[in-house]
């Protein structure tokens, strides 16, 4: 396979995103744009109490309101569970502020809201739990009878001889970190439209990262077969691991549609948006690492407690992800992990970026930095000494077929001027490094991790590519078109990507675990090769060469080294169809990791942040980020840079700004105004270095760039702040008040 950029005509070249003009001019359609004949609008009645007993629900006034078509409560769906110990509606005890108690469907949204306010629920308030410490106390009340000790889920494992590893360590360091609750701030709010007017077919329009998981969850819970559930996602406005599973509003729309026989739309209001999905924290981390005198990690131990809130659905995956992360980054001989999801009466926890890994990196990266400093070692040298390398197999069984970690670290350090600056900056100026690794897909959700693709080519040379992979802003569809175009000698703009309808497109596990470019990309490549084979028959005959000697490039087909003999691609397609055989060219392909479990490829990165602290306000400015990422091969370098920028922004924002403030279980800042997400003015200057390690298994050597950068940004910024301040802040976000408090304490001596 060709490996130099010049060998490709599409891959590796900057390609503006195919839907760019549509997005910029507001023509891209989202679920909220869908209007169906007879469509009703729904509202959910939510608990105002963090924990209370329901004494009675009176729906009569709501039902009497003109325009109201249905009111549903627990009695309408008594066996429908949306999570473990989470029936769709509560009828005995509510467990958080926002818990679903009833729902109403009406002719318009205003009437639905009015009716929801008319549903009278009588409550008896009960004591509640609002943090991990209280929930874990021996005499704490039990939120769910089956979750003993309020532990919803736990996981523990020892790999290697951990005690021996610590015993053989010259230094052992322990650190504790806390990350607070946060929110994803999706560009698109939570919304669903369900049409279940006929009993044997449920159609649902909704943003999603994975239509197949939505289809299976809805079918299972609503007692339909998978094929009876049709999921349609138009564009999806942001994912961040938060749109990987069905949430209560999806079921509410479906049940109301069945009851009324009409399509039902439900969308979150601005403050419901913060209740429907709490992303991230509070999480408490304890990291303990033992190293040799020369800084070689001998043993590692992590203990992590997640405040999972009132319910769990599929959040236990966070334990698997956080337990394995260290093995993808450092060569570890012995590791111990213990983690648990702890119930409280807060909003159910979901993920914020990378299934909990980004937040974990805040503490883990600071812990390793502190360890290096304690040893008198430059953090850059520490990471280089311990980082995984190409050809290494970790104790979890992962083989690293490609690895640009060391190259990322050295290139970033050089460009940032690390040696010149580290330890030599004036007061209140700081520099810090963060390194990270990220899986390009993983088996574990199902026995397979399959992505499939179809491609059809019509006789003017244009093509339609059918994939199940959603595009949630990351420009995955443009990347898929580029991969197909490269194989078929077309241009990306010749290809229309069809996605987001499970009745039409082939199966795809979805845009999660950063599997799109790797898995779906391999499937698309395979489908394109299948289509090309069908064209080669005619082309090889016309040109009098073997199919293997054909070059498909720049909308032409020619024998290798003889471009002057080129035949236009569309003529080959036309003649293949307009022939006695009448062959319509349709390629198909799929990809499934050959491994039984785990990941085929990891991407790597290193970022160096420079910050300035303002002693008057405590504000931190991120002045510069040098970001280097091993993405295997950059299919679309422009978009790779965009992905890095987006994650630098979000990572910086998580470290310095974002917090869902909770007071007795209630979100105090449920708006974009008070949840202080920064604006583009706060975006630091980013310098990109793309490292291409050419993965042996990825399409054209490509790996993910979906979450790899952000796991570097959080520790880089946190370490830079610690460097500027002269001491670390072990709590995220690092707010201006924490900084002024530290500076004030120091001024007093």
């Amino acid at each position, binding site marked *: 396979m060709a490996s130099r950029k010049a060998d490709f005509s599409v891959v590796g070249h900057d390609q503006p995103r195919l839907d760019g003009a549509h997005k910029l001019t507001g023509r891209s359609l989202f679920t909220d744009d869908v209007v169906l004949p007879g469509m009703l609008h729904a509202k959910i009645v*939510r608990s*105002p*109490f963090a924990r209370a007993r329901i004494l009675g629900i009176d729906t009569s006034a709501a039902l009497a309101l003109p325009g109201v078509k249905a009111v549903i409560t627990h009695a309408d769906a008594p066996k429908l569970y949306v999570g473990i110990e989470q029936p769709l509606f509560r009828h005995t005890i509510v467990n958080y*502020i926002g818990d679903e108690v009833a729902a109403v469907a009406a002719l318009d*949204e*205003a009437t639905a*809201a009015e009716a929801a*306010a008319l549903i009278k629920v009588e409550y008896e308030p009960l004591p509640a739990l609002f943090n991990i410490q209280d929930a874990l106390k021996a005499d704490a009340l039990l939120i769910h009878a089956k979750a003993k000790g309020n532990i919803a889920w736990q996981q523990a494992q020892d790999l290697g001889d951990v005690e021996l590893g610590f015993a053989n360590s010259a230094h052992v360091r322990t650190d504790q970190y806390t990350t607070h609750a946060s929110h994803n701030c999706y560009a698109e709010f939570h919304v669903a439209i369900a049409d279940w007017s006929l009993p044997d077919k449920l159609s649902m329009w909704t943003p999603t990262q994975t239509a197949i998981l939505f289809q299976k969850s809805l079918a299972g819970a609503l007692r339909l077969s998978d094929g009876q559930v049709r999921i349609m996602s138009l564009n999806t406005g942001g994912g961040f691991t938060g749109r990987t599973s069905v949430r209560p509003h999806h079921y509410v729309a479906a049940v109301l549609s069945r009851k009324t026989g009409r399509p039902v739309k439900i969308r979150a*209001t*601005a*403050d419901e948006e913060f209740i429907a999905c709490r992303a991230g924290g509070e999480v408490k981390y304890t990291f303990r690492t033992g190293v040799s005198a020369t800084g070689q990690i001998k043993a590692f131990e992590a203990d992590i407690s997640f405040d999972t809130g009132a319910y769990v659905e599929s959040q236990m995956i966070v334990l698997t992800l956080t337990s394995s992360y260290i093995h993808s980054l450092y060569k570890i001989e012995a590791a111990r992990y213990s983690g648990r999801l702890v119930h409280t009466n807060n909003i159910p926890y979901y993920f914020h970026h990378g299934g909990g890994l980004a937040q974990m990196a805040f503490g883990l990266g600071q812990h390793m930095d502190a360890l290096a400093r304690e040893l008198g070692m430059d953090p850059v040298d520490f990471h280089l000494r311990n980082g995984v390398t190409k050809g290494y197999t970790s104790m979890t069984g992962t083989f690293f077929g490609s690895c640009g970690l060391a190259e990322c670290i050295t290139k970033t350090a050089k460009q940032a001027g690390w040696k010149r600056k580290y330890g030599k900056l004036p007061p209140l100026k700081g520099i810090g490094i963060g390194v990270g690794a990220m899986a390009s897909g993983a088996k574990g959700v199902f026995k397979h991790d399959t992505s499939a693709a179809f491609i059809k080519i019509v006789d003017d040379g244009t093509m339609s590519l059918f994939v199940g992979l959603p595009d949630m802003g990351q420009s995955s569809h443009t990347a898929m078109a580029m991969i197909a175009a490269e194989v078929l000698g077309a241009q990306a703009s010749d290809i229309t990507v069809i996605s987001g309808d499970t009745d039409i497109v082939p199966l795809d596990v979805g845009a999660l675990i950063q599997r799109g470019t790797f898995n779906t990309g391999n499937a698309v490549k395979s489908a394109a090769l299948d289509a090309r084979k069908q064209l080669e028959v005619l082309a090889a005959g016309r040109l009098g060469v073997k199919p293997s000697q054909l070059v498909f490039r720049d909308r032409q087909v020619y024998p290798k080294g003889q471009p002057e003999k080129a035949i236009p691609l569309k003529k080959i397609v036309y003649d293949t169809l307009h022939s006695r055989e009448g062959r319509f060219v349709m390629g198909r392909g799929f990809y499934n990791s050959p491994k039984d479990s785990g990941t085929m490829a990891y991407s790597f990165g290193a970022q160096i942040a420079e910050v300035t602290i*303002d*002693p*008057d*306000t*405590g*504000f931190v400015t991120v002045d510069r980020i040098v970001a280097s990422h091993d993405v295997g091969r950059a299919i679309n370098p422009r978009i790779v840079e965009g992905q890095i920028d987006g994650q630098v922004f979000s990572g910086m924002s998580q470290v310095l*700004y974002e917090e869902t403030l909770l007071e007795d279980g*209630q979100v*105090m*800042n*449920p708006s974009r*105004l*008070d949840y*202080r*997400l*920064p*604006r583009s*003015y*706060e975006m630091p200057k980013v310098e990109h270095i793309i490292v291409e390690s050419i993965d042996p298994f990825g399409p054209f050597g490509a790996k993910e760039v979906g979450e790899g950068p952000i796991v570097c940004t959080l520790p880089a910024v946190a370490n830079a702040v610690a460097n500027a301040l002269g001491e670390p802040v072990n709590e995220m976000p690092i707010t*201006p*008040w924490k900084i*002024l*408090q530290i500076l*004030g304490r120091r001024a007093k001596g």
Partner: protein
Amino acid sequence: MQLPPFAYHRPASLDEALARLSTAGDSVAALGGGTDLLINLKLRLERPRALVSVRDLPELAGVSLDASGTLRIGAGERLTDLAAHPLIVVPYPGLAQAIRAVGSQHVRNMATLGGNLCLPTRCWYTNQSENWRGSQLPCWKTDGQVCHVIKTAPNCRAIHSADSVPALISLGARVLLRSSQGERELLLADFYRDDGIENNVLAPGELITAVLVPPARVRSTFVKAAARTGLDYGYATLAGALTGSNRVPKSLLLVAGSVGTMPLVLQKPAQIILAEGLNEAGIEAAADAVRDDLGEVTNLFTPPGYKKRLMRGLVRRVLHELRRQKLPAAD
């Protein structure tokens, strides 16, 4: 969230507007740019029966200098226009900075100066949706008997955060108020009341028609400490205006915003500068003294202690800026 139903009037003259405003008393609200009022209607914090649009009244327009050099700014002027107006930008840089600090460009394109002066106080227990408030006991603003901001307070302690106000007070600005009964004029500093609900002295049916800035050759500045650039309320703001020289300052007004229920004139730091002069030692002493002036600071949107530490930094910053600044050139 949707707007509640209301009647809408668009009078052609100030007299007609004042007649509309006075007839129905409390259940009529004047609508300027609507950038705050319409949000509060959606939150059901105000329930006027009718809105009277005052946005295009000719009597509320115009920026001009009278013979004495007093600057008259019509209350209906848009913030975007004022932020770039030569009669403001050159002589009163602090005021221009403060106006530019309000909301975002889109907000300033709609918002009026009069509206900003009448911006209701805000807190995160009350400025939420009706559903959200259902989890809290009603407070003074929502016909309850408690303040969630300061539990022991006998009245509403929500925060006053109109950015233009500290700057105008520091310049000694006055406001012209009109109702169908007549006109009165008072110092903007006397316009506000230390109550989050009855936050100013505007009588029912009364409207701010203009702001008057007295003639003076001043150095002036404004700083806003907010989490992000624009589209944000400040954790604290500070305006300063100085006459005289660094060595012999004649007058100094330092006015803080977003720290309490009304703008706060800082007495001690100003006295120190007037006594010691505007120099390095004076600035440090003034910054250290601000803590005593602040008294009970509302710890809203920030944890306890931060606003006092922050205000110390802002005093230092404003005084250093005034010290550096050159006096605007005389005409």
